[in-house]
């Protein structure tokens, strides 16, 4: 891909003698959303951490904007399944955290934080602590914290995996709305097939033990995607296709675990 912002080349990760994945290749364009899906334990979250530079690979390399990733870098932000909010900081202080570490001035922080809090719909909750708001609101806060540094690469680690089904759906469409306002490179790890089809321009299916890229499915659904997208025949078709690829593997993985 000519304008690839993230390139993963022949990536492999081993923990001791356990090879999690091997020979994973992937390129993500500058305005592209790639969803990574695979059975539990296939290393999709590990791969995402390697892309961020939180974990070193044992084989291969990741480059972002042409330079190899050696650690977390400027312009890349991550949203975590566990939200990762600091319980002793208010919503405002949590959103300001990334900006503060990036060296933003007090004036910039005072301008940006309320703007991003508004963007995720948390206005009025600036001075609440994480334990005082719902899980969905906590993840809105996590999202605002990531967006506030205006990243060129957004890494999403099952961001809606820990919230209830209704909230999850609301947040998916919120994220789509926000992404449409300012499209950027996004890697979205999920174990929900619907979510992968709804979010991704392409879906990378990881499969096997150790896992590798089994299939890349192009999602030719028009943007902006809305609730109406869910009712399109093409959406249903794609979902069935991913389901077919994944479920055979999931079943096998489940039986592997039992043995």
């Amino acid at each position, binding site marked *: 891909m000519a304008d690839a912002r993230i390139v993963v080349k022949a990536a492999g990760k081993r923990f001791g003698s356990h090879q999690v994945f091997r020979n994973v290749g992937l390129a993500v364009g500058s305005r592209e959303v790639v969803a990574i899906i695979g059975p539990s334990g296939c290393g999709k979250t590990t791969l995402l951490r390697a892309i*961020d530079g*939180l974990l070193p690979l044992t084989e291969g390399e990741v480059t972002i904007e042409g330079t190899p990733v050696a*650690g*977390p*870098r*400027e312009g890349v*932000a*991550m949203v*975590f399944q*566990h939200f*990762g909010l*600091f*319980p*002793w*900081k208010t919503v405002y202080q949590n959103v300001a*955290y*990334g900006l503060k*570490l*990036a060296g933003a001035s007090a004036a910039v922080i005072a301008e940006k934080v309320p703007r991003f809090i508004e963007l995720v719909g948390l206005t009025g909750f600036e001075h609440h*602590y*994480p*334990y*005082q708001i719902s899980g969905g609101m906590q993840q809105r806060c996590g999202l605002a914290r990531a967006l506030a*540094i205006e990243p060129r690469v957004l890494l999403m680690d099952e961001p809606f995996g820990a919230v209830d089904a209704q909230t999850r759906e609301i947040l998916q469409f919120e994220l789509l709305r926000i992404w449409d306002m300012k499209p950027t490179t996004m890697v979205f790890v999920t174990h929900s097939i619907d979510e992968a089809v709804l979010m991704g321009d392409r879906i990378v299916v990881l499969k096997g033990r150790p896992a590798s890229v089994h299939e890349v499915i192009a999602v030719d659904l028009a943007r902006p995607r809305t609730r109406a997208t869910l009712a399109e025949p093409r959406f249903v078709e794609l979902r069935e296709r991913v389901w077919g690829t994944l479920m055979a593997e999931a079943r096998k993985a489940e039986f592997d675990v039992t043995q």
Partner: protein
Amino acid sequence: MRTARRWLEAGTVAASLALGAVVWEVAGRLTSGAFWAPLSTTLASLGTLAASGALVRYAASSLQLYATGLALGIAVGAPFGLLLARLPWLRVALEDYIMMLYATPMVALIPFILSMLGFGFTPKVLVVFLFAVFPVLYNTVEGARSIRPELVEVAHAFRSSEWQLWRDVMIPYTLPFAMTGVRQAIARGLVGMVAAEFFLSPSGLGQMIMLGSQNFDTANMLAAILVIVVLGVLLMDFGRWVERRFAPWRRASE
């Protein structure tokens, strides 16, 4: 309904305290003055001591000892606890000593301190310090070690430097644990204060108790004990307030 229950509770507490005072008074009147003084006599002694300025002098001496030892205990215990959590090899090297000293009744060390350092202010401060430092140290180490790894990961993902990680994550996370240690140190330090005043050079409220006992002046002795009881209750309340003050988030998120 709720106010009714609160009144009932306050009434019960008041009745219990009043009954306790009556029992004290009656017990004092029925026994020899050498063993037990009635509450009224104790309060009268307390009034005399307060009026003569002796009470303030003794209490000030005790509080000076207590505050110095406690402050040193906190000032050493909390930073050293963080350091131990930060340097695993140092923790492994010292952990057993800390556990041994934490488990040792510190009173057992007082004769040893006496033979090492003799009389004076310094050995007494050392006793209060030893009573106070271990709860702070122990709770700080355990707190810092229980840091949620995902919060450290968030800090790394946002490119936190080591120093920023400590400022933004480790210290705020550990603070409420350290405060639990401070609350315990506040209580244990008071024990250390009285023990030091008994067994090292007599001074302060401890000396007042000893003098009262030796002179069969039970009213004076009970007056001094009463002052220590009130001090203990106030300090425990203060300790609990301090602990809560620093961790509004901890109670709710655990």
